[in-house]
């Protein structure tokens, strides 16, 4: 019976996370903001396989090439679940929360599911995704477990967050291209900037603090992404992300215990 009640508790906590915050309604608003920030520029319009330029509409149901119609549903569902399970401030408590490995792995599963129908899947995107995964995992290197209960604010954590942010700048074209990429992008951001969740001001409720951070972060990263793309600096971004991830790993190992 205890096993069944654990499952029942998990499901109850999951529903509000999945359909209200941080998944569901909140995710939809975050997605619209992300697409508004990055989708207004033609820089991110991508050619289809037939050579046409697909409109990267800001509407979810706008055209027959709507992002939802074109979306890879299994990959999108995995990304959505990852975002919903993030340990953000103000979320419903799960009876068994996911550790950092599980969350990062779920995002990677979404990526792997997405790569199946990407003829244009490039090494830069793969390299950036692996760099972000490494950066997300480095804070655990100096600890005792894969769980990080209190988001750390040490050097390794900030370097890790910087590496994730740098990688996300490089992944903006992917986020603009399809819905699963965008949801994954939001999930990586929530997992990567964990140190910020630990310094939540007392005057703000969790959901408002998270919304504010996402609002600002998306705007800044979209601007940086556009600037980097115009300069053709995807390789440089990848190099920066890898360097910061490795620096974070070294810092975590050296400063351990």
């Amino acid at each position, binding site marked *: 019976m205890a*096993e069944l009640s654990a*499952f*029942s508790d*998990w*499901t109850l906590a*999951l*529903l509000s996370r*999945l359909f209200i915050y941080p*998944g569901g309604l909140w995710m939809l608003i975050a997605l619209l903001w992300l697409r508004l920030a990055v989708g207004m520029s033609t820089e991110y319009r991508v050619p289809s396989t037939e050579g046409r330029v697909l409109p990267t509409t800001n509407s979810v*149901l706008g*055209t*027959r090439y*709507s992002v*939802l*119609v074109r*979306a890879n*549903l*299994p990959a999108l*569902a*995995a990304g*959505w*679940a990852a975002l*919903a*399970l993030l340990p953000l401030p103000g979320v419903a408590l*799960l*009876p*068994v*929360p*996911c*550790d950092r*490995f*599980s969350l990062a*792995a779920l995002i*990677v*599963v979404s*990526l*792997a*599911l997405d*790569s*199946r129908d990407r003829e244009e*899947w490039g090494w830069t995107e793969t390299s950036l*995704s*692996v*760099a972000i*995964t*490494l950066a997300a*995992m*480095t804070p*655990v*290197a100096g*600890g*005792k*477990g*894969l*769980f990080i209960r209190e988001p750390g604010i040490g050097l390794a954590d900030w370097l890790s967050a910087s590496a994730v942010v740098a990688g996300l700048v490089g992944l903006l074209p992917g986020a603009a291209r399809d819905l699963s990429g965008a949801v994954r992008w939001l999930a990586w951001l929530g997992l990567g900037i964990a140190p910020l969740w630990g310094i939540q001001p007392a005057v703000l409720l969790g959901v408002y603090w998270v919304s504010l951070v996402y609002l600002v972060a998306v705007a800044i990263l979209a601007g940086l992404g556009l600037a980097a793309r115009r300069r053709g600096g995807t390789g440089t971004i990848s190099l920066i992300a890898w360097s910061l991830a490795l620096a974070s*790993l070294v810092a*975590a*190992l050296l400063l*351990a*215990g």
Partner: protein
Amino acid sequence: MRDSEHGDKEAKANSLSLLLAALINLGLAALQLVLFLPLVGEGRSLDLPGWLVLPYRFIYRADSLALAFGAAWAFALGLTVLGLRRDSARDSRWAGISLCLMSFGMLSVAYARDPWALYLGWEVAGLGLWWALRPVCSGRRKYLSALSLHILGWPLLLVILLGLVSPFAPPVTGSVQAWPVAVAVAFGVVVLARSLWASWAYIGWPRANANFVYARLPGLYAVAAPYLVAKALVAAPWDAVGVWVLALLGTIGVLGGIAVALNTEGVGSVAGVVATMAAISVIGFGLAPGSLLAAAGAIWVMLAGLVWVAALPVDAWRTNLRPAETEASFGGYVAGPILLLGALAGVWLISQGALNVKYGLIAAILLPVFALLALIGQKALFNSKLKTVPSSEAKDQNSKLLLPIAFLTFAAIFPQSVADWVLRPSVQAMAGVSALQGLESQLGVGLLVRSQQETVLAALPATGMALAVFLAFVALYWLKRLALLLLREPPGKAR
């Protein structure tokens, strides 16, 4: 006309021989379960004599680790052979016999108590592999491959001859003594060499890539190689230097496997992925004396690797088909994610195990490495002809991949079952590792790792996460249907 009839008869005979080989292997898997499961289910083991050859000496030992590996090996090989293309049998006259030889050799390895039984079993398995691969190598290469397969076992032979390897069974009396460092080095080198041999076979033998009969076998041989290190833990642990050496060798193997995977294409790239999986298992078994979680994770990765290789759609590795003659291969589309899903809990266990013994570097890099493997594997399969199969065989081939894929998916969604039914008993059989404490199965949610102070160190609520993905998928499916309904254009405007 007569030649054609003769060829057809020969092909039918060969198909029959391969079908028999598949049934024998699947039967062997079932037989092992029937014979030994009641015994090892009670936590016991059974020492077996050499019957005809050495009737008065125990040379085999049936325990839960041996049963898990032996059954998984026979199952994976049976599935591999079952998935053979009919016309592939034309050039595989002896494949059925050689596959059985390979399987008997590996089963001798699985149940070996005496080091000589293990060594000779691996030689027989190598002979079976070479025999199966013989049609695709010619001239000097044929003898070179036989010699190389034999040479790979020399470090093992050397330590056995020097008397450094004791029987693979826990000591009856007295305390457990750690293995000498030389044994750790020799075992680690042999495992890595055998796992990388498959890459050499894939890359060096273009003809081997042309027929999946040959393409999967080195993969199975490579991914099974770490069992040697696991077997050693049945008798004794490594000392601190041995742990370090195996972790180092495993890390070198990971780098080597990734280098192969990145610098090759198609099946060669997949071979690099397989070699990396074997190296990850070596790391897990290396760290095992310090953390039983690492041992459990390594067993998981090894067994998942065996099933994954059986699920590879390499049967479609033919370059002479026109697009119109092919259909999407189910296996080709899901190979990367399935690798990730199937082995994920194993990698999670090794990562937590590495943190337990303060190997933080390994804990941090394992997930990125596995992510890279999944993406490389997917890219290698997708960008090659492997994503398609001949239309005439699509239904047949795809249905044969369903079983291993279903196994891996079940293991990913419900890891509690593997942890309780396979890992706990298997780890219990290892004298070099303590009982699998700290790992907690929550039936409805997933796996937890607790410290001695009852603090939750890690949590993989895989079943709960799968539920989240499922609910999200259902919601998206209906939203997409709704979107398509709303966006349906009038017939006149449709393109």
